């Protein structure tokens, strides 16, 4: 699978307002490649949910988007607190978000399930105290 294109983003963990900026820029870049709107939307939503998670749960991180011939891969890596129980975190409605985060419109416990729903492949590697790396793929079909 030859690497066609890579977009790299650093995600600032201190600024909730700018959260989602990387996903926004990435979406613009993908549009210029003439990829179908449906695929772009799925990638954008999955990346955006992951980006927001890094900001609200992990003090920021990095995002890499690789465009291959047959799929788009999104890798989100952070050095946050990690996820103790991944199975539980994947359940719809499960959230450790505070009331403050809820008042900002997040913390419904829908982000990880959404990421799974919109992608064809999703893998979570997480170590408590070290961080989390999430890899997702959306196939062109």
């Amino acid at each position, binding site marked *: 699978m030859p690497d066609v294109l890579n977009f790299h983003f650093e995600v600032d963990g201190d600024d909730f307002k700018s959260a*989602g900026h990387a996903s926004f820029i990435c979406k613009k870049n993908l549009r210029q490649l003439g990829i179908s709107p449906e695929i772009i939307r799925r990638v954008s939503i999955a990346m*955006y949910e992951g980006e927001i998670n890094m900001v609200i749960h992990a003090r920021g991180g990095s995002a890499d988007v690789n465009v291959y011939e047959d799929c788009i891969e999104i890798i989100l890596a952070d050095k946050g607190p990690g996820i103790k129980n991944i199975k539980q975190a994947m359940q719809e409605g499960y959230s450790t978000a505070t009331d403050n985060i809820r008042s900002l*419109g997040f913390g419904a416990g829908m982000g990880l399930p959404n990421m799974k729903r919109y992608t064809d492949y999703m893998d979570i590697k997480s170590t408590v105290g070290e961080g989390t790396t999430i890899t997702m793929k959306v196939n062109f079909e």
Partner: protein
Amino acid sequence: MKISAIKDLLEADVVCNEEGLNRHVYSACGSDMMSDVLAFVKDQAVLLTGLVNSQVIRTAEMMDMNCIVFVRSKVPTAEMIELAKDSGIVLLTTTKRMYEACGILFSNGLVSNRVKDA
């Protein structure tokens, strides 16, 4: 339904992108939780919300939504308006509450539709 019809039904004011009022929307979603909105995929939808921050605009942008209605007289910030202009998203604001605004649009034929789990 045309966005201009939404404006009339909700007696809403246009905050920005007035030129988009002629566009059509085919479904709607009302929520203050952005991940609930992101769970909902439908082309050309309108978002009704009482939440006011930049993430509302970004969420709509990620979903390819082309109109956001702020209920309960909520007013978007200058930063939000800039983001919306960049994305061509029509921003409306109405004095109506969420329940009433959704009810009016629903009873005038604008349906909701949540995509089934893949």
